[in-house]
């Protein structure tokens, strides 16, 4: 079977004076923006919740566990619908927020649960002696976390966080469902308008792979820079 490629489709006008190529790169920008904002939010919230799950106080542990279970057991698309359709209707303060912000909340909370799980595992993989030593030296519990536990734990969780960071780029594609102008939205609309789906999907798929690969290299760079000599992966 021979397929008549028609890559010129990217240079044609989409009806608003810009080319499909320009539209695609703008959509790529939205994909990266959604991913980056959600990532920052998820990293902050996830670290906090993950840490809470390891403190001795039962109440905090319970809050942390409940958080993780709630955001992990509802599909991302449903969570996006909740933030987009339900939250603004129930809480007036969210009424005028653009879809972009609501999607960042949805993806941020969703990913925070996964990051919390990784951070908890990272903290629990440290030997108990580290915590005890910190406390025995007279550090308060928050200071033990700040100076002893978390600096090690965060280094340990960098590899799983790398795959979460790559996941968040993939997951940002679900934002198409609430009309955020990201790449999947572009792919669906441009496919419909031009009927050159294969060319368009190929280009979008390539950009997704490039983005995920870039994130992977970035995280690997961070991992190298923060290595602690004498630990696995360190001392090189």
């Amino acid at each position, binding site marked *: *079977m021979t397929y008549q490629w028609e890559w010129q489709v990217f240079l044609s006008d989409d009806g608003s004076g810009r080319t499909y190529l320009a539209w695609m790169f703008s959509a790529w920008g939205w994909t990266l923006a959604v991913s980056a904002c959600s990532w920052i939010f998820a990293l902050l919230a996830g670290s906090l919740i993950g840490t809470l799950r390891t403190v001795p106080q039962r109440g905090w542990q319970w809050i942390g566990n409940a958080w993780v*279970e*709630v955001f*992990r*057991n*509802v*599909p*991302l*698309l*449903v*969570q996006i*619908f*909740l933030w987009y*359709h*339900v939250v603004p*209707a*129930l809480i007036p303060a969210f009424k005028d927020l653009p879809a972009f912000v609501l999607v960042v909340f949805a993806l941020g909370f969703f990913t925070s649960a996964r990051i919390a799980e990784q951070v908890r595992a990272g903290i629990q993989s440290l030997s108990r002696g580290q915590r005890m030593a910190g406390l025995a030296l007279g550090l308060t519990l928050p200071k033990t976390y700040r100076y002893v536990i978390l600096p090690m734990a965060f280094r340990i969780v960098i590899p799983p966080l790398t795959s979460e960071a*790559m996941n968040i*780029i*993939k*997951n*940002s*594609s*679900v934002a*198409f*469902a609430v009309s955020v102008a990201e790449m*999947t939205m572009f*792919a*669906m609309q441009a*496919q419909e308008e031009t009927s050159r*789906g*294969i060319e368009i*999907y190929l280009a*979008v*798929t390539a950009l*997704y*792979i490039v983005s*995920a*690969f870039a994130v992977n290299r970035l995280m690997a760079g961070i991992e190298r820079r923060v290595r602690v000599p004498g630990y696995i992966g360190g001392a090189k």
Partner: protein
Amino acid sequence: MLDLDLTFFDWEIISRFIAKGFVFSVQLTLIAMAGGIVFGTVLALMRLSGRKSLDVPAAVYVNGMRSIPLVMVILWFYLLIPFLIGRSIGAELSAIITFVAFESAYYSEIMRAGIQSVSRGQVYAAQAVGMSYGQTMRLVVLPQAFRNMLPVLLTQTIILFQDTSLVYAIGAYDLLKGFEQAGKNYGRPIEAYLLAAVVYFVICISLSQMVKRLQTRIAIVR
């Protein structure tokens, strides 16, 4: 503050809108799990075969699938299947084929880890009693790999069940779509989405609790 009215959800709505979607979501999950585990095991065996001609294509397939967003994969198949066979096959069937192909990649990574977790001595022992490669795998290695990985395979299935909601992209009628349609028809979209979330949550958390219990039971035996 908006007043919610959940009372409008009655049996009629459930049977007219929700049941159909629920059945499809479960069907899709089960078929994708069965197909995904079978093809995933084949892919895993190809990757562990030590033969480049088998290993490389399997690796490309698995890593390729895993680096593309699922929504894009769903769209790809929905575009390509009619293009290749010359006729449209409908969103539901397209979704089933997509999920089997996509989940195979994820299950294959689990099966690969499972096969690698079986100690080498088992393989040597099987060979020593004269078993062929096929017998060694079928009778000795795969049953153990499968058992070791059972909790992980089931956890992947829970994720798979959640991911089935993404067939929204091609308009297939699944559980989420059922709630959405009910909400639209009765002018209660907010309640419909809330209930959808609750239903997914209850299903997924019960399943994951069951997996947790299974995990501890398996751990005791081993």
